[in-house]
C-alpha cells in the first residue's frame, strides 16, 4: 500500500489516481495520520500543497521519523519538504511557474533515468531550492532546461525521491513512467 499525505492541495487526487496504477493508495490529511495504515504502507508520499515546508511542522516530524524506514517520495511542496529537512533552503523565485509546461533534463547523477533524457512536465511552484546545495546522500538528478532550477532528487541510501514538478498534471507527458521508476527503485 502507498500512503499519500495530503497537504490540502487541489492536485492530490490526480496523484492518487496515478499511484493507483501500481498499488492501493490511502489518502489522509497531514494533520490526521492513520498510524495503522502508515505502518502497513511500503511507500509514503508527501503531496503538493500551498505555502512552504515550515508551515507544516507535523509533516516535518513525520519525515524525520520515516526516513530510512520507508521509501519516501515528495511532490512539489513534498519535494521541498524533503530538502528543507535535509538542510536545504527554500526561497521565492523571480519567475513563478503556475500551470506552466517546461522541458527538464536528466543529469548524470541519476540512477533511475538515462542521462540527458528530456521530459515535458507541468509545474506549479512559487518557491524553489536555493543553490548551491550540498548533501552526501541526496543528489539533484533533473533540472529545468531553461532556468536550471532543481527538478528531481534521488537518495538511494535512504530510498528518498522527489519531483519539483507534477507527474500527475495533464501537462506532464509520461507521468506514469516517471512514477513507475520510483516504484521499482
Amino acid at each position, binding site marked *: 500500500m502507498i500512503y499519500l499525505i495530503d497537504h*490540502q*492541495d*487541489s*492536485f*492530490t*487526487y*490526480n496523484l*492518487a*489516481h496515478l499511484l*493507483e*496504477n501500481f498499488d492501493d*493508495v490511502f489518502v489522509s490529511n497531514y494533520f490526521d495520520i492513520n498510524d495503522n495504515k502508515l505502518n502497513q504502507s511500503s511507500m509514503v508520499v508527501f503531496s503538493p*500543497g*500551498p*505555502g*512552504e515546508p515550515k508551515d507544516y511542522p507535523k509533516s516535518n516530524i513525520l519525515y524525520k521519523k520515516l526516513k530510512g524506514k520507508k521509501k519516501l517520495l515528495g511532490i512539489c*511542496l513534498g519535494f521541498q519538504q524533503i530538502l528543507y529537512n535535509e538542510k536545504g533552503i527554500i526561497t*521565492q523565485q523571480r519567475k*513563478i511557474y*503556475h*500551470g*506552466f*509546461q517546461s522541458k527538464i533534463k536528466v543529469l548524470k547523477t541519476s540512477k533511475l533515468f538515462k542521462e540527458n533524457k528530456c521530459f515535458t512536465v*507541468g509545474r*506549479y*511552484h*512559487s*518557491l524553489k531550492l536555493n543553490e548551491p546545495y550540498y548533501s552526501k546522500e541526496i543528489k539533484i538528478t533533473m533540472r529545468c532546461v531553461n532556468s536550471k532550477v532543481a527538478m528531481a532528487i534521488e537518495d538511494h541510501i535512504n530510498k528518498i525521491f522527489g519531483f519539483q514538478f*507534477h507527474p*500527475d*498534471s*495533464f*501537462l506532464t507527458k509520461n507521468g506514469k513512467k516517471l512514477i513507475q521508476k520510483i516504484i521499482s527503485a
Partner: protein
Amino acid sequence: MILLNNKEYLNRLFESDKPLIIYKASIGYDVYTDFSDSINITKSNIDKFINKTLTSTKIRNKLFDGYIGFFGYELCCDLIGVKIPKQKNNRFPKSIFYKPQTIIKIRKNITIESILPNFKYVKDLIKTNKNFFYENKFNVNLSFKQYSKLFKKFSLKIRQGKTYQIKLCQKYRNISNLDSVKFFWRLMKVNSSPESFLIKDKNYSIISCSPETLLEKNNNKIFTKPIAGTYKKTSKTSLNKAKIFFDKNEKENKEHNMIVDMERNDISKICKAGTVKITKLKFVEEYKDLYHYVTKITGILKKSSTNLDIIKAMMPGGSVIGCPKINTLNLLNSLEKDSRNIFTGSFGYIKSNGDMHFNIIIRALVNYHDICEISVASGIILDSTAKKEYQENYIKAKSLLDIFKK
C-alpha cells in the same frame, strides 16, 4: 371553470405572483411551478434531504421527479468545513430546493405536464399587484483603488505560494424591485447562455445567464466543463480569432491549465482510478459580449460515492474560486468583506433516481428586499494587472447591467 390554452395559461402564470423556475434547456426553456414542497437546506438537514427526502419521492411525475433549487456559497463552504468570518450579509437563505408538480416546456410549441388535475383552473392565478421599480445606475462595492489594494495583497500571497490563483469578487448594487420574468426574457433575448435560469419566489428572485456547467451525473457517469479564460468580443473578433488568441496567450493558458488539473482532482475524488479523462481540451465558446476557453472532463463514479460526496467534492466550483481550493477559500473569506450569497454557489436539480445537474451561479443577479445585487469575479494570477481584471469584471457584468437600460 376557466380553461385557457397553453400559451394563455403560461402568460397568465408569468404575470402572476406564483413562484416558478425557468431553466434553459438545450432547445428552448423548461418552466417548473406548482411547488408542493420547498425546503431550506442547511448543513444539518442536507444528509436527510439527499438520502431520504429525495429517494422516498414516489414516482408520479414522469417528466421530472425530484427537486430543483440552489446551494449558496456559504453552504458549499460549510459542507467542506471552511469557516466564513463575519461579513456584510443580507440574511438571504443559504439554499432552497423546490418540488415541482407542473412542468411547462417552451419549444416550438408549448406543452404542459402536471400531476395536478385542475392545473388550468386559474382562479388563484391573478395578475400581480406588486409595485415594480428599478434604477439604472449601480454602486460598486469596491472602487478601483480598493480593488488594486486587494489585488496587491493577493499577488503577494501568490509569490509566497499560499495560493496559485485567486478569484476576487466584486458587487454592483442598486435599489430595485424587478418584474423578474420580464427581466429574464429581456436578458435571454441578448444572452441566452446554456445554464441560464430564473427563480421567482414570493420574496426574492434570481436571474442568471451562467455559461458554466459544474456537473452532470447520469447513472454512474459524471462530467464537468470548467471555463477559464475570457476574451472580449468586438465587431473585429471572431470565434477563430478568439481561438488563436487563447492558444497563443501564455497567461490565459496557464490559468486554464491550473483549472483543468484542479477539476481533474475534484472529480478524481469520487471517480474510479483510471476513468478520469479530458474528453475535449481547450475549446472556445461564443457568448454575447465575450468568448470563453472551455475544457470537458469525464469520469466513472465509484460505487461508494454518494450524491453528497459528489457535492462536497465539486462545490464550490473551482474555476470561480482559485487554486488550491481550501487555502484559497480561506484567503478569500478573510479578505472579502461582503458575503458572496448565491454567487459561485450552484443551481440545478437532483432527481429521485440520483441523477443530477448543477451549474455554477455566475453572471447572476439577486433581487431581495428591494436590493438588486450583481456579483462578478476574475482571476488574479501574477501575469495579470489590477486594471485588466477590474475591466474584465465589468465585461462580465455588462450583459446584466444592460438589461436595466430602457
